[in-house]
């Protein structure tokens, strides 16, 4: 016990900390911000071609609104992933255990404790992967749908810059807000 305390957390404790923490790794963070930037920027095409917004005069507006939407969307991805991860981990526990047990059963040198640790790590990895991808898909689909509904059905009478700002900004804000829910 004292040795592990001197060395720091055990692998199991580290995984538990990671599990209950909302922090994401640098790689996940880069993935979230990259996706959020792309999805926040794509609706500019619609506003340019269909709502006929002026590109050059609205350049600063595009940069500001896209930056804000990117941040909010990335926040939504992170929070949604955290919520989904626990649910997915419960669902995949049996399958991952079975899969890894089958693969590690032939390895007689590995202790039971090490095998359990590997199963726990794999379960975490699978849950992390599925939660990340599902969170990105879910938030992207919701974002694009709400932006289209807002800009074409709720706000078409407003000027294109106002329409753009409110549609993108409000949708990203709404998704960030919804993602903070506990369900």
């Amino acid at each position, binding site marked *: 016990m004292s040795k592990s305390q001197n060395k720091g957390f055990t692998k199991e404790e580290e995984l538990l900390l990671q599990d209950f923490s909302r922090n994401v790794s640098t790689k996940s963070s880069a993935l979230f911000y990259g996706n959020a930037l792309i999805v926040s920027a*794509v609706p500019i*095409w619609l506003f340019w071609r*269909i709502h*006929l917004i002026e590109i050059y005069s609205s350049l600063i507006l595009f940069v500001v609104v896209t930056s804000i939407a990117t941040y909010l969307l990335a926040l939504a991805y992170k929070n949604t992933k955290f919520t989904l991860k626990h649910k997915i981990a419960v669902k995949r526990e049996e399958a991952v255990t079975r899969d890894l047990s089958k693969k590690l059963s032939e390895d007689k040198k590995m202790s039971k404790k090490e095998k359990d640790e590997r199963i726990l790590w794999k379960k975490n990895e699978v849950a992390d992967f*599925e939660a990340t991808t599902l969170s990105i*898909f879910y938030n992207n689909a919701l974002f694009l749908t709400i932006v289209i509904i807002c800009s074409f059905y709720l706000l078409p009478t407003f000027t294109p810059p106002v329409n753009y700002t409110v549609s993108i900004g409000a949708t990203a804000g709404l998704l960030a807000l919804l993602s903070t829910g506990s369900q």
Partner: protein
Amino acid sequence: MYKMTATILFAVFAVAFCNPEEEAGPRLLVSKQILNRYLVENKDIEVKYTLYNVGTAAAVGVQLVDNGFHPEAFDVVGGHLSARFDRISPQSNVSHVVVVRPKRYGYFNFTSAEATYKSSDSSVVQVSLSSEPGEGGIIAFRDYDKKFSSHSWDWLAFTLMTTPSLAIPLALWYSSKTKYEKLVKPTKKAH
């Protein structure tokens, strides 16, 4: 006294009864209508002129001219801005249609056209001005296009741009999901 009264009364009746002679003869009423619902820059505008002869005699040598569409502002793409009708019978009408295309957008005042005609037994030229459609707004093509175009190619391009952001995460999640669900299924089937 009585002679003076009778003379005055006779003069009044003479003036009153000489009017029917002036009403006899052709009388054209000309209507000028813009048939379009929307007036759009570089898109056709149909103008219909209808000449009604409400008089009692035929109108001959009818010349209809519309100088209201200046060549700098409009192109004539169908028909002519002047038309000639040899004879318009009493209580009948004729129509003439011209198609013009505005070169610029903005407000435009559609003025009257002019019809000149004569009676068959008189050389006096009568002039009739058509109704005036008034001021109309010719909207810019981009505004019309924004409202009415289907933007199919734009939507297709948008769909192509958004597909990777949706399809890739969904495919990755689904492949992982099906892989691990298959591992669980055989046990459930055994039960």
